[in-house]
């Protein structure tokens, strides 16, 4: 259970160009992350705190297959993204890079900057006076990848285990 996270509330169709602006794609991940979401919320990169959670509408991460869209959020310490739906390649990239992602039909009533606690095991999100909102938990198989920190560490662990037997 995450003690207390701040919610950053975003709309529909947040695209990979907003998350990882093309003109910083050859810059360092630090510099790229400093411009993450600036076209949507100018203050985001400067004010977001490790452990904060993004809550968005539908089709989060639409656009290109660039993995930097996920890397920028991770770099800034975003603990999870909760959205009505995700663009397919973004969802895959998030799992493969170890960023927890939850689908949730009920994001409309969650207010920007509210304080919340997320149980990444069950997908239960406690939001102040709203009480508990149920997000769809990640399927166990995908959660195992996220828990290991992403596909590469997940495979490293698996290969090490295979080598040990």
């Amino acid at each position, binding site marked *: 259970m995450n003690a207390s996270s701040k919610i950053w509330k975003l709309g529909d*169709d947040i695209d990979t*160009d907003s998350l990882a602006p*093309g003109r910083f794609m050859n810059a360092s991940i630090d510099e790229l992350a400093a411009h993450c979401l600036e076209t949507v919320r100018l203050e985001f990169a400067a004010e977001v705190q490790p452990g904060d959670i993004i809550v968005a509408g539908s*089709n989060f991460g*639409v656009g*290109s*297959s*660039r*993995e930097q869209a996920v890397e920028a959020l991770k770099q800034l310490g975003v603990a999870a993204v909760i959205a009505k*739906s995700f*663009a*397919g*390649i973004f*969802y*895959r*990239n998030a799992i*493969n*890079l170890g960023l927890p992602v939850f689908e949730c039909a009920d994001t409309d009533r969650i207010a920007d900057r509210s304080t919340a606690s997320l149980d990444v095991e069950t997908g239960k999100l406690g939001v102040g006076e709203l009480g508990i909102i149920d997000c769809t938990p990640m*399927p166990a*198989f*995908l959660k195992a990848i996220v828990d290991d920190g*992403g*596909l*590469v560490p997940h*495979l*490293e662990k698996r*290969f090490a285990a295979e080598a040990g037997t």
Partner: protein
Amino acid sequence: MAQTLAQKIIAKASGAPSVAPGEIVIANVDLAMIHDSGGPRRVKPILERLGRNVWDNDKIVVITDHFVPADTEDTRAIQRITREWVAAEGVKAFYDQMGICHVVLPEQGYLAPGMFVVGGDSHSPTGGAFGTYMFGIGATEMAGVLATGKIWLKVPETIRIEWTGVLDPLVSAKDMMLHTISQLGMDGGRYQAVEYVGPAISALPMQERMTLANMTAELGGQTGLIAPDKTTADWLQKRGRSVGDYSMWHSDDDALVLARHVFDASRLAPQVAAPHSPANAAPVEIHSGTSIDVAYIGACTGAKLDDLRMAASILRGRRLASNVRLFVAPASRRDQDIAETEGIMQLFEEAGADILPNACGICAGYGGNRLGEDIRCISTTARNFRGRMGAASSEVYLASPYTVAASAIAGRIADPREIAGDS
């Protein structure tokens, strides 16, 4: 239970008798394709970290097309890494500067109905034209596939797009997709399997089907399938791939689909998508008269042999307008060679076109012919996002090879039916 084509292929790949939409499965990959941009330079460090070589060097195809020709220090280094990695891993299927990956892969006989294939590029759904379940993945995930030969997949629902009727002359698959995307939006495919069916689809030649499947990327589908038929089998046969019995690779009649959209090909006019989204498509008349500086016939989407033939049919005996530059970048060397024997390449040159290498070129925003400030271009490519093909102030209109050729002659966006009737 009745199954969709997508379910049947995924069931086979995952070794299950059947699979249900929403289920997460682990599938064995029949083939993995990578190119010079997202390929060796990105996956090599990950494989080294994992301490693994590729799972099966007979199931990997490497094609260089993005940083081609390599004329800077950086790009030469990328091509060197690519060649060295191919040699070190013993990959035999290496096509160096012979054309764009999505076109070279099937023309060299690597795809067949019922296969389950991943590509390290977002236009990988192109392979769906052959009844292959093919989709694009990022570099990290590709490294995982190369190490293990497996990938996880959420079994998709199927969205069926049905085209009835008959296309008019000078209307093409590109127009069908621009119209579909304008109606359903760039997330109309919802990352599910899109399947194209109906008489107007069956009537399309193979490379036109590839154009449909290719632009499933802009429609937001994971893949864009067309069930194989005699057109498919004959085309592959000619490229050394015998297909055998493909009768099982179709959706069962009563298989459940998530959505079904019906369009009438008989009523479709040539389409043009205005900057900066493929979803901004409308009939050409809306934009006709808009002046242009550059016409581009290129990309996996719009410079295959059939695309070149379409453009040539308009350009024959004509010259481009004095205010326009026309670039033609044939999608593969093989297609260019055939075009050569048909007199098409000569016809392009006589019309005043500049011929560019068999590579992604301007479509990837690469090379000296990138669009400059305030340049307006009409293009046979798939994407017109701001700045993709050059300067942020440049504008790209998307259209079919017929419409791009007609516009090059007119010096403004023009309806190919008017230009063709005008001789």
